[in-house]
């Protein structure tokens, strides 16, 4: 959980795109192990859905997303995020405020019997916030796609923290939805680049 928290902070802090892709790969791999952790709580060890779900998430988030994003990066030929709207220090400060806010919010909610550790829910809300913040504050289209992936990771952790048992079909449906979304975002980025010769969304408004 704490590693997840720290990966969110490092995402807020880094401006290099390939570092961002590596961090969300790492995040996806950590999240893929969450269904296996819930198995211990429900004492049903040999049912296959959690392991299969973990495998699916591992494949999609750990392999497919980085491959898609790197392919898009290579076809668009950008190296780093140039001048985001919110700089490094301010991003970290906003991240800290968001983290304390999410911890405070989760103290107000009466929780009974979460399947994961007690800090899973605040970290999930914080991940959602980080994803949305990245979409809003970054300029390049690829970091906005990365922000969307982070947002979906946060929603998934939120669901895992509150569910008692994993419903396999629903989760796999969500995963494939996200996969299709990232695929389409990659195609869109490629087309934006072909039309405008850059993927700087701030410049799209200018004539």
């Amino acid at each position: 959980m704490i590693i997840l928290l720290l990966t969110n902070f490092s995402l807020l802090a880094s401006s290099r795109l390939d570092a961002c892709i590596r961090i969300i790969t790492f995040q996806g791999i950590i999240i893929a192990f969450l269904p296996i952790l819930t198995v211990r709580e429900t004492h049903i060890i040999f049912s296959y859905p959690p392991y299969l779900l973990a495998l699916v998430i591992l494949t999609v988030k750990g392999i497919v997303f980085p491959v898609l994003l790197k392919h898009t990066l290579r076809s668009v030929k950008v190296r780093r995020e140039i001048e985001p709207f919110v700089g490094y220090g301010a991003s970290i400060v906003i991240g800290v405020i968001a983290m304390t806010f999410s911890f405070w919010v989760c103290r107000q909610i009466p929780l009974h019997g979460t399947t994961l550790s007690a800090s899973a829910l605040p970290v999930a809300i914080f991940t959602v916030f980080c994803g949305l913040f990245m979409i809003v504050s970054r300029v390049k289209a690829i970091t906005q796609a990365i922000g969307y992936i982070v947002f979906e990771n946060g929603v998934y952790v939120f669901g895992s923290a509150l569910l008692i048992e994993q419903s396999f079909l629903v989760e796999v449906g969500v995963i494939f939805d996200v996969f299709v979304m990232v695929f389409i975002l990659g195609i869109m980025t490629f087309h934006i680049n072909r039309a405008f010769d850059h993927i700087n969304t701030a410049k799209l408004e200018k004539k």
Partner: protein
Amino acid sequence: MELFQMTQSSEIILKTHASFLAALLLAPVIPGIINRTKAFFAGRKGPPVLQLYHDLFKLLRKGVVYSSTTGWVFRAAPVVTLTASVGVLMLLPATGAAPALISFPGDLILFAYLFGVARFFTVTAALDTGSSFEGMGASREVQFAALGEPAFLIALAALASLSNRISLNGIFSELAVNSFSNLPVLLLVMTTILLVLLTENCRIPVDDPNTHLELTMIHEVMILDNSGPDLAYILYGSALKLWAFGTVLISIALPFKTGNYFCDSAAFLGGIFLLAVLVGTVESAMARFRLDKVPKMLITAAALSIIALSLTLR
């Protein structure tokens, strides 16, 4: 046999005084170890480990030269630095085995502010010399201190809320009891304190203690005009400062106490020497950061300490 029987309290008094004196005597060894480690990485043999002792004795025998532009602040600053460093060492469990010489609730704020007083006098003395070079060093020093002090204080606050005590002595004796359950918080706090240690003691990612070039000096430049015993006081005070920060770090890192005074002291001294080797390794492996990256590093340290604090308050 009755001659050698000591009561419980007088045994503790003897141990605390012995630890304090040992820390005062052993502090100059640490810069020696760091320099030896750096020389080892560079393929050289390096200065002897006890070099700082020779330097201090040489400087104490020399005369002092005061610039005509300086006033009383310049003469007072080295003495204040030395006194503050010795005062801080009195607040800490000096070799980790015996309790601190002086401890009262809230003394962790005194810890930060004694160093703050020393820094204030050093910076003002640097400005007092009227040299723009030293003024540049003074401005860099206060910039990094303004970012590093909150990080350090919040890390201490995280430790205090973890162990429910607000005295340094109390914190370290409580932390010894159960540390495995608090491992993530302790790791975050240790990372923060390591980053602040590298900043405050002018080590490589922040400041190069070897060069006297404008690009890389922060602490060295403020003491350019000091000479003789003043310089000896400042060098010894900085060695004590390194020992103090190292004590905080090693007391968190070594949670177990066997109860035997000599075992604990030996483990602690081994820990401090290992920390010196680690600092020397970091100094050899990295170049100094570009100066606009240092505030980012300090803000990261502050963020890590805030994460640690919110994890303990959960």
